[in-house]
């Protein structure tokens, strides 16, 4: 579609559309299934094995002068390894077309339509960012033992970046460097094997709302509201490379999330923050798409930032309602990001929706105390009568010693879920599952929940 501005003889501007109306493009995910990961002198895929040139990738990461050193390590499912402190987990993805990138807005301008065209996925591996702790919010991944049952990342081949910042680097700058290093590594891995043949292709039709309304006029229209925290250090998310702190809610096509339109800088707390991996593989999007055209008409995703002040929560809540009403929504799922104050946003939107006839399900987790006896949410509203919970983060767990720690085991004394004395003399750890990456994930990617007894 080409838009030209013409001047008419009266001098007033007039928008004129030339050419025929172009359809939105299809989105294609091509997956290379990776079942083994190792280092080599060249980054390439052979069969289902990914080999990584450690030096080349290190050089790319060290282009950032805030990073003094980076060590690369591999953690495979079943190994006796513990990764701590973990900041983010990213799935390697890239676009096929020149000038387009996954994680739009991070490697250049976002001057291309994200969530359309072809995207490569390295399936089965992740990039895990670790190294010296930025603050308290980073988490833990165990590759075997009882801790591994709580995190899908324990089942992945993880390429771990152990990043040491230069001396005296500020916390915000440290966080930024680690976040960008993870994205660079994910981007590097995928784009290094772009020429390889893929194992599986998944096609998504990207449609205009007009098409959706016409195609399924009798199905209930559903929106998905995906909260993304925007509250400062280790509590931020990025929309197209923009810190979401200054953003109003964005309406997205489900496929944009798959292209990395939302990148996580959020670590609070490990159990229930969405990593970048979670945003790329949003299970609510997947499960809504599965029912799309059958029992629902899935219109799109509204991504609202979650701020701290009530005035901001109210402003954003009304914007979410406005978007949902403009779309003519009949139903909605709202997922929480983090815990505590985001529950106020959750309840504000649930109240708005239900009062305006939009049937709503919210999806959260709980902090009900180690004994499970405390109220598990920080805010409530009677309109929230349909809630899915992903477990109680305060549950205690004992994790046996591991042969190898990638990172710094002493971080356990400080991270969320740990405490002074968490590390026992025999090397085992007593902590809350709140410290395990994604254990009570509020997108519902795991199958943990609570029941009342």
């Amino acid at each position, binding site marked *: 579609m080409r838009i030209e501005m013409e001047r008419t003889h009266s001098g007033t501007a007039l928008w004129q559309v030339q050419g025929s109306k172009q359809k939105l493009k299809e989105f294609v995910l091509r997956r290379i299934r990776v079942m083994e990961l190792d280092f080599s002198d060249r980054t390439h895929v052979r069969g289902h094995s990914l080999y990584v040139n450690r030096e080349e990738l290190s050089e790319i990461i060290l282009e950032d002068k805030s990073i003094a050193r980076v060590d690369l390590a591999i953690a495979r499912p079943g190994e006796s390894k513990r990764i701590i402190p973990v900041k983010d987990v990213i799935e390697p993805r890239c676009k096929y077309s020149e000038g387009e990138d996954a994680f739009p807005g991070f490697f250049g301008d976002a001057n291309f339509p994200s969530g359309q065209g072809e995207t490569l996925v390295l399936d089965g591996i992740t990039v895990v960012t670790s190294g010296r702790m930025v603050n308290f919010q980073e988490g833990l991944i165990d590759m075997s033992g009882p801790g591994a049952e709580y995190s899908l990342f324990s089942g992945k081949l993880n390429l771990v970046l152990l990043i040491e910042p230069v001396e005296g680097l500020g916390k915000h700058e440290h966080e930024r460097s680690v976040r960008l290093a993870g994205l660079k590594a994910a981007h590097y891995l995928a784009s290094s094997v772009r020429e390889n043949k893929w194992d599986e292709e998944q096609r998504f039709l990207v449609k205009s709302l007009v098409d959706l309304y016409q195609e399924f006029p009798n199905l209930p229209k559903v929106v998905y509201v995906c909260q993304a925290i925007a*509250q400062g250090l280790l509590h931020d998310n990025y929309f197209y490379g923009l810190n979401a702190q200054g953003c109003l809610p964005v309406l997205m096509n489900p496929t944009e999330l798959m292209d990395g339109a939302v990148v996580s800088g959020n670590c609070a707390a490990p159990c229930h923050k969405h990593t970048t991996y979670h945003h790329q593989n949003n299970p609510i999007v997947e499960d809504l798409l599965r029912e799309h055209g059958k029992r629902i008409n899935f219109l799109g995703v509204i991504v609202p930032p979650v701020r701290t002040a009530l005035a901001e929560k109210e402003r954003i809540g009304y914007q979410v309602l406005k978007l949902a009403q403009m779309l003519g929504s009949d139903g909605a799922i709202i997922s929480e990001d983090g815990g505590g104050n985001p529950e106020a946003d959750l309840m504000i939107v649930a109240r708005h929706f239900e009062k305006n006839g939009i049937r709503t399900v919210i999806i959260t987790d709980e902090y009900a105390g180690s004994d499970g006896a405390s109220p598990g949410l920080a805010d409530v509203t009677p309109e929230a009568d349909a*809630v899915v919970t992903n477990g109680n983060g305060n549950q205690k767990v004992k994790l046996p010693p591991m042969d190898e720690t990638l990172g710094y085991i002493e971080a356990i004394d400080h991270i969320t879920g740990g405490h002074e004395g968490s590390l026992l003399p025999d090397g085992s750890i007593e902590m809350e599952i709140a410290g395990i990456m994604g254990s009570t994930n509020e997108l519902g990617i795991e199958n943990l929940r609570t029941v009342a007894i």
Partner: protein
Amino acid sequence: MKQIRVIHYINQFFGKIGGEDMASIPPRFEEGPVGIGEMIVSCSEGDFQIVRTIICGDNFAAENLEEFTKTILPWIEEVDPDLLIAGPAFAAGRYGTACGILCQEVHTKLGIPVLSAMHPLNPGVDLAKKDIFILETGDSAREIARVVPRMVSFARKLVLRAEIGSPEEEGYIPRGIRINVRDQRRGSRRAVEMLINKLEGTPFETELPMPVFDRVPPAPAISVLSEAVIAIATEGGIVPQGNPDRIEAHNASKWCRYPISDISRLEKGRYEVAHGGYDPVPATDDPNRVLPLDAARVCEQDGLFSRLYDYYPVTVGNVTAVRSAEKYGREIGEMLKKDGVQGVILTST
């Protein structure tokens, strides 16, 4: 199957010692089953062996709870049982209290499975239900023949550590606690199905009924502010450099207080942020941003109030369990009241 070694607790009446006239007898024990104990054994078809029956008068137990448990615990420990059954107590309040407290003590101190049974309004229920399972009964011993088989089958599950179903399925009094379990379907799938049911008008069940919060009425206003002692307190985790008491970044296990009587403002570098739930950079740069000592001193000098309290209480309010928060609030309040503080400015993050 190996026999399950059971301790049975009953009161003086079920112990066939006497009625109200014998309610003051101190604890005693007999080897083997007594009364209902024999029903328990026969109902278990011999799987349960009652190794010892402990009997105590209802008044003695209710009036000397500490001595009651202190006397009985060693009697239980020395026979190394697999299970404690207390009651059933039905609606008998003193008896139910004794059953509840004993079960609670044995469960927390010895870690063996325990079970009681009583009417939901028995005061023993509220004392113990958070820690133990209590089967629901009617108010009178007439239904004993129905209660004992239920106790035996539920107790067997406890000993075998079998999966325990919901209160409705199993017949125990809802304990008001939430435990983690695995569902067959992931959370997102459950959410989509719940939404479709809601949209289609099909019944659905929320997984988390909204919790009910306590309402705290505000204290009466301070009548003469210029004569009042005022404290500043925070849940924002401002602690002396090095976090000497190691307040946790999340779900804090304690609150602390630190002296401020000699200082007019919190100097950068002498305090740090122990809280894991917000961006610590601005408050590290100037801790007064979270604990406004500088502003409080100005108000003090201006005579807005008579004096600032010599300490500031602090904890970390980051995903902290409400039960803990209530406890810290009560303790801090009691301390402030005792020290003559009339008002407090509590800062949050």
